[in-house]
């Protein structure tokens, strides 16, 4: 009996290729393609007065130059507003090439196509654009003050105001025994994958087909967007995701201007002649100024609580910087508003989120997608309550936790999937016990004293969160066994290093009873699977994992039915082990799956020797009165199914850290970082741990090192890795973790998502630990040694 693969920390199938340099990332493709480069706005806000391309026209290798004026029909329309929402009353998107006005440094103005990237950059550098600079709006306070507008037709720079409430929070706060008010500020950072974006488009006039490779998290949706913009039927458009060097959210935005412009230019340049290929692989500076960030929020909190620290009423006002445009709607502030509640049952809650425009790069989800901001708010509030009452911070959390017997727990709000925010499962009290244990919470006071005697300053922090994972609408899976016995699995969503091909193979191999090595998985290729949503919000394992399992079960059922006919056995007595269908307990009565695959497709013509078994005279078909393909079935040993969840399923976690601060230099160091995490049963524990490590590292990065700095004129001052400080190995501590598994009742596999877990509570935890060490309130993150030094002298 083969061992079950689900739950095994097996090594990844992706690795053999990647460690030998045989990855196929976007810029590894299309060596002979033309190259695109862009003239991008150097101003944060300006009117375009004139574009003079003549100095570029005699540049060597130039093929074409395009401005907004050249864009026809739908290509010249604004980019789509992907996620409309009733509260987003003033959503705005940009044009693929700027039309009249630029609204952030980096906005594309002119596209150049040349024989190679060096020549394209030369031509772009020669183009002269004349601008009339306009006042730039930078920072939330300036946006809200609205002395100047980012969009002339958006009063107050307000894109949206979203209010959600349960109960009467103001009244509950007024009636509470105790009250507190807090002002908090939190900046995230940016996804900053090491591979930037890229598009490689090929148009073939002979068959009118467009093939686009793009480094994306949402290839099926990119396909629909390109087809719509180019007014082509989607069946004529293939979008293929290559190996992707990290996404972390930034590559879920689509279509980027480049994703519209390159296919259009390829088709335009091809005319009726030979196929044309064009490629654009963005450089690091482009990524800083023209992709997406997830920057700041200002939060004002009013909370009412009792003597035990139970929150009776919570009223939060959030002001969110969404950058110059809102292609991704208001998902980030929605997630902040809803996930702020964490694992707690709050008496009454009111949240009002205002999303504001600024003349800066757009703000869209970055791993955590608004949760870190919400958790920062709730957890700093919990710590403030504990301080006010003189109670232990973990005990205050304990008083507020939802109990395991209270699931499903309805928070009374609408989540980012448009569905009710109902927590389905978890065990928060148990997690709290586990994290207290792992970090040594109860022994810390003694540790801190010993350190103080040596002149060292230590502090400990705690952070708790929940994450609604596995949001819909759906994902699908296709499983096919071919006549060699190999199993081909396809799903439409994408991979950026999460090991999808491994975990989906584990699932399919388990469901079918075949060796893992016989399973091949393709993700993100519309040629293999056309209906999908994308990889984001920690949903891939839940959605595609379940869809693939369901598809595999269909294949299994079909295989057993066909094998049953061949073996003259009842399908219920059959099992599949190591790719062989056999009567349970009687291994000699067996038929390999590859033969079942042959029999599944009644043939006239035997294309090889094995196929002869399915031809009309082989005697393997059904009876003389039965059609070879039974009504309602299809030829072939394959199956397709979809998983569409009723709502999100709730993963959760608690982190704790011990931080040391230098009394003289104010340098801060994380000495220990501990994670307790619950994503239900883990398909591959090693991959889950890897996701946690990477998430925590990004969380530490965003707490202590990374900040995107705009000056008052809207210039991004640190648009390079020299001044945008991503941590190296020397900056990231060892991460200790422990797991709890509470299965999800919402899907067949009982799993929950894990991709974002590591990053969510980190700023809250680090802020808490520094505050504990210093005795100074830390209400603004990120924090640098210089910031801490200033706080020490001016608390």
């Amino acid at each position, binding site marked *: 009996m083969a061992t079950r693969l689900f739950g095994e920390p097996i090594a990844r199938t992706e690795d053999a290729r990647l460690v030998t340099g045989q990855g196929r990332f976007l810029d590894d493709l299309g060596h002979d393609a033309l190259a695109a480069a862009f003239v991008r706005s150097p101003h944060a806000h300006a009117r375009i007065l004139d574009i003079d391309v003549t100095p570029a026209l*005699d540049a060597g290798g130039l093929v074409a130059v395009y401005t907004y004026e050249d864009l026809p029909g739908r290509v010249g329309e604004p980019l789509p507003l992907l996620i409309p929402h009733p509260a987003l009353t003033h959503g705005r998107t940009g044009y693929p090439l700027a039309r009249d006005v630029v609204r952030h440094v980096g906005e594309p103005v002119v596209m150049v196509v040349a024989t*190679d990237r060096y020549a394209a950059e030369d031509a772009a550098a020669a183009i002269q654009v004349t601008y009339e600079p306009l006042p730039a709006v930078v920072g939330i306070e300036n946006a809200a003050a609205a002395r100047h507008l980012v969009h002339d037709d958006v009063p107050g720079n307000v894109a949206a105001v979203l209010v959600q409430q349960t109960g009467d929070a103001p009244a509950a706060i007024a009636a509470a025994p105790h009250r507190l008010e807090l002002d908090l500020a939190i900046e995230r950072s940016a996804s900053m994958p090491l591979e930037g974006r890229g598009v490689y488009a090929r148009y073939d006039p002979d068959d009118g087909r467009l093939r686009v490779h793009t480094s994306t998290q949402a290839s099926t949706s990119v396909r629909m967007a390109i087809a719509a913009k180019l007014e082509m039927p989607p069946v004529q458009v293939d979008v293929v995701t290559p190996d992707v060097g990290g996404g972390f959210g930034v590559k879920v935005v689509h279509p980027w201007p480049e994703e519209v412009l390159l296919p259009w230019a390829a088709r335009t340049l091809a005319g009726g002649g030979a196929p044309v290929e064009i490629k654009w692989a963005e450089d690091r500076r482009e990524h800083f100024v023209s992709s997406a960030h997830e920057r700041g929020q200002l939060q004002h909190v009013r909370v009412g609580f009792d003597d035990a620290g139970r929150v009776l009423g919570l009223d939060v006002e959030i002001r969110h910087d969404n950058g110059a445009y809102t292609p991704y709607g208001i998902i980030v502030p929605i997630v902040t508003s809803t996930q702020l509640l964490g694992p707690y049952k709050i008496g009454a809650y009111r949240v009002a989120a205002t999303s504001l425009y600024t003349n800066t790069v757009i703000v869209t989800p970055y791993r955590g997608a608004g949760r870190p901001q919400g958790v920062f708010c709730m957890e700093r509030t919990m710590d403030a309550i504990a301080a006010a009452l003189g109670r232990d911070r973990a005990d205050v959390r304990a008083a507020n936790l939802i109990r395991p017997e209270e699931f499903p727990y309805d928070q009374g709000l609408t989540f980012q999937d448009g569905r009710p925010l109902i927590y389905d499962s978890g065990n928060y009290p148990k997690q709290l016990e586990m994290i207290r244990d792992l970090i040594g919470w109860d022994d810390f006071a003694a540790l801190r004293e010993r350190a103080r005697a040596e002149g060292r300053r230590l502090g400990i922090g705690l952070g708790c969160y929940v994450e609604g994972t596995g949001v819909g609408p759906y994902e699908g899976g296709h499983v096919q066994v071919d006549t060699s016995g190999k199993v081909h699995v396809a799903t439409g969503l994408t991979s950026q290093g999460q090991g999808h091909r491994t975990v989906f193979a584990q699932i399919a191999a388990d469901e079918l009873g075949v060796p893992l090595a016989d399973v091949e998985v393709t993700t993100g290729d519309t040629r293999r699977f056309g209906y999908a949503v994308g990889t984001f919000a920690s949903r891939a394992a839940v959605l595609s994992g379940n869809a693939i399992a369901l598809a595999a079960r269909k294949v299994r059922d079909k295989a057993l039915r066909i094998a049953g006919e061949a073996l003259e056995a009842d399908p219920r007595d059959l099992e599949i082990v190591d790719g062989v269908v056999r009567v349970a307990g009687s291994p000699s009565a067996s038929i390999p799956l590859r033969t079942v695959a042959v029999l599944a497709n009644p043939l006239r013509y035997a294309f090889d020797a094995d196929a002869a078994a399915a031809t009309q005279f082989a005697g393997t078909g059904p009876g003389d009165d039965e059609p070879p393909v039974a009504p309602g079935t299809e030829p072939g040993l394959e199956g397709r199914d979809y998983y569409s969840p009723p709502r999100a399923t709730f993963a959760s976690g608690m982190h704790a850290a011990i931080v040391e601060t230098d009394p003289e230099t104010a340098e801060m160091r994380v000495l220990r970082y501990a994670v307790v995490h619950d994503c239900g049963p883990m398909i591959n524990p090693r991959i889950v741990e890897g996701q946690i*490590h990477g*998430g925590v590292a990004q969380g530490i990065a965003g707490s202590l090192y990374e900040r995107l700095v705009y000056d008052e004129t809207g210039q991004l001052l640190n648009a390079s890795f020299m001044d945008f400080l991503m941590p190296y190995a020397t900056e990231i501590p060892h991460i200790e973790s422990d797991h709890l598994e509470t299965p999800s009742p919402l899907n067949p596999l009982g799993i929950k998502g894990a991709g974002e877990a590591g990053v969510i509570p980190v700023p809250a935890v680090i802020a808490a630990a520094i505050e504990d060490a210093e005795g100074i309130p830390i209400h603004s993150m990120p924090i640098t040694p210089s910031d801490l030094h200033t706080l020490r002298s001016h608390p």
Partner: protein
Amino acid sequence: MSRPAEEPRHAITLTVNGTPYAVEVPARRLLSDCLRHDLRLTGTHVGCEHGVCGCCTVLLDGAPVRSCLTFAVTVDGHAVETVEGLAAGGEPSAVQRAFGECHALQCGFCTPGFLMTATALLRETPDPTDEEIVEGISGNLCRCTGYQNIVAAVRRAAASERT
């Protein structure tokens, strides 16, 4: 600013993974682009083109360098090792095997840079302390793994090469 209609090309020879390659490149052709696009050795990746991320790290005459901060013409006649040369006779090296065994890669984009850096580190210091390992890889960025498993992989590779 006017530029020459045709950029002069320089004939150079690079020995890459033991094989001599003769190419003609403009003077400004970065070694990273020469390897990737002129020689079609795309295993070396480009993450920043200003020397900070380390994705482009190759070995030049045995020492790790940033290929994005090197002109191909400067290293005419020199020997370069890239990730494609690590597996001897089709067998992955100890470092390559250790990365897979320790789950030291996720998206794989930074991995060739780490493999070359770690390979050079272990050639010079076959039995490094954990501090020496972390110092040795301290110039390479990884956005996916949090480095923990990468350090474990280098430790494991060192141990396996000693046995």
